[in-house]
């Protein structure tokens, strides 16, 4: 049996970040990936955040295969054929130090894996890890699907993605529930560069994002998204599985529903679908974060439920958790102590960082939306109606119109209901 210091299960952003930091610390490191190469099994929206990525690979933007730097973020609420929108644009985001880029994971993760190899990590592909190896209750490696496929390790980092098979087997996580995952489907639609730039009002090479709430998910708890790539658009929709089942929706119908909206349709017009993808997003939030460590094991990224869906941040939480896990693994190994106690440093460092602070901050959010299913139905309608009434020039004096708007709001949601929603939102989000 070949022995390593650190074995990382899964070649996504979390696993590869862990590999880079472990290898940089001089550890004999291997990443075990089930795909043809890292990236081919990986899906996200996808937005990559500069700060976190730069902490893993400094000045990555000079070489990495990125799509477009994001200079504008819009939030839209759809109500029937109507749209109400807000946005923020800053051309300064088009240059160093940036804020975020759109990426396509097959290209990007492959590049990130090359950086891990440069740091000294080994990548084993087309290999599925089936279980951890134990010796008198201590984790001592992994069992792969290959013949004579046992590999020894002092520390195993679980970066297996949202489907947390190994974390469950190791007694660290619970099986996922329909209320704690969002089923997301996406299309990559080819469109000429110039068309993308014209339609989104972008200078050459710049990118924009739109998140769409309300009827974009047929009122289900979830969100639609449109991201500009170099010469394609990623459009997708994700909704929590539990209400999706209850309302008899199929994911592809939800996506087609979004694509058929007048505002969306025009953005995609003439494009050619190149790929249809599906993925789960872990939405359990802070209360469902699994045990993050045990003797010889650390849990990172989606497997650790590290996802901030409100700010659509996930890749950055994954990368920072991976980076810290790689460092903690190396320190523990050097100190000759990989006990559960030694591994708590990982959790402490996550708690001291934005990763668990943000999850903790939004800890009431999941329950708030789960218990208030009317929010994504009632409010897009109320806001659209109010905007339309306010903007319609039909000779009604404005003072009268404002009174009508207030009346309309109360007709759609009682005063008590509004107060309850506002208090709930304040508690869940602020």
């Amino acid at each position, binding site marked *: 049996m070949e022995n390593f210091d650190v074995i990382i299960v899964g070649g996504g952003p979390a696993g590869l970040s862990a590999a880079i930091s472990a290898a940089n610390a001089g550890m004999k490191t291997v990443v075990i990936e*089930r*795909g*043809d190469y890292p*990236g*081919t*099994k*990986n*899906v*996200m929206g*996808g937005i990559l955040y500069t700060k976190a990525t730069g902490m893993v690979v400094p000045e990555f933007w000079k070489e990495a295969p990125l799509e477009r730097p994001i200079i504008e973020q819009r939030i839209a609420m759809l109500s029937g054929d109507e749209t109400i929108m807000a946005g923020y644009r800053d051309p300064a985001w088009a240059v160093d130090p940036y804020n975020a880029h759109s990426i*396509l*994971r*097959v*290209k*990007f*993760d492959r590049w990130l894996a090359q950086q891990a190899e440069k740091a000294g990590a080994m990548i084993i*592909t*087309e*290999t*599925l890890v089936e279980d951890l190896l134990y010796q008198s209750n201590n984790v001592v490696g992994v069992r*792969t*699907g*290959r013949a004579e496929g046992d590999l020894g390790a002092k520390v195993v980092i679980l970066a297996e993605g*949202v*489907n947390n*098979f190994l974390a469950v087997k190791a007694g660290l996580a619970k*099986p*996922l*529930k*329909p209320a704690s*995952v969002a*089923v997301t*489907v996406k*299309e*990559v639609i080819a469109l000429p560069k110039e068309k993308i730039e014209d339609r989104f009002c972008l200078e050459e090479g710049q990118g924009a994002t739109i998140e769409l709430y309300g009827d974009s998910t047929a009122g289900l708890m979830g969100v639609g998204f449109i991201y500009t790539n170099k010469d*394609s658009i990623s459009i997708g929709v994700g909704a929590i*599985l539990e209400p*999706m*089942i209850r309302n*008899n*929706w*199929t*994911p*592809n119908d939800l996506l*087609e529903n979004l694509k058929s909206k007048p505002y969306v349709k025009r953005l995609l017009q003439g494009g050619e*679908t*190149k*790929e*249809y*993808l*599906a*993925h*789960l997003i872990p939405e359990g939030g802070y209360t469902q974060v699994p045990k993050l460590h045990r003797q010889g094991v650390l849990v990172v990224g989606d497997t650790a439920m590290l996802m901030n869906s409100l700010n659509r941040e996930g890749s950055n939480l994954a990368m920072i958790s991976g980076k810290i896990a790689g460092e903690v693994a190396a320190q523990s190994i050097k100190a000759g102590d990989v006990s559960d106690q030694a591994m708590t440093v990982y959790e402490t460092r996550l708690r001291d960082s934005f990763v668990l602070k943000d999850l903790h901050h939004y800890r009431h959010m999941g329950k708030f939306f789960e218990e208030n299913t009317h929010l994504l139905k009632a409010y897009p309608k109320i806001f659209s109606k109010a905007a339309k009434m306010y903007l319609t020039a039909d000779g009604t004096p404005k003072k009268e119109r404002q009174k009508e708007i207030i009346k309309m709001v109360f007709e759609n949601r009682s005063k008590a209901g509004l107060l309850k929603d506002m208090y709930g939102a304040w508690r869940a989000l602020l």
Partner: protein
Amino acid sequence: MKLDDKLFLVRFNTDKLNHIKINDSNVCLKQCQDKPCTRFCPAHVYDWDEEEKRIAVGYEGCLECGTCLIGCPFGNIDWKYPRGGFGVSWKNG
């Protein structure tokens, strides 16, 4: 655009071994009224076969998201990842 046309765009390295198993087809027949797996799977891997009175599993088109494992109300779908190197192979991701 129809789902079948979309799935046609996806690249697979199909394994001859099936990585999905229905634990007990009697549960689908007798206990499961509305067969949500035939709707919630993004790739429509699951279909009710009226003649055979069982769920037909088209594992070759599985996009490996894991929805079925979590979504089956009876925990009756034994979904695993395909063997290393097999299954979906994204072009964009």
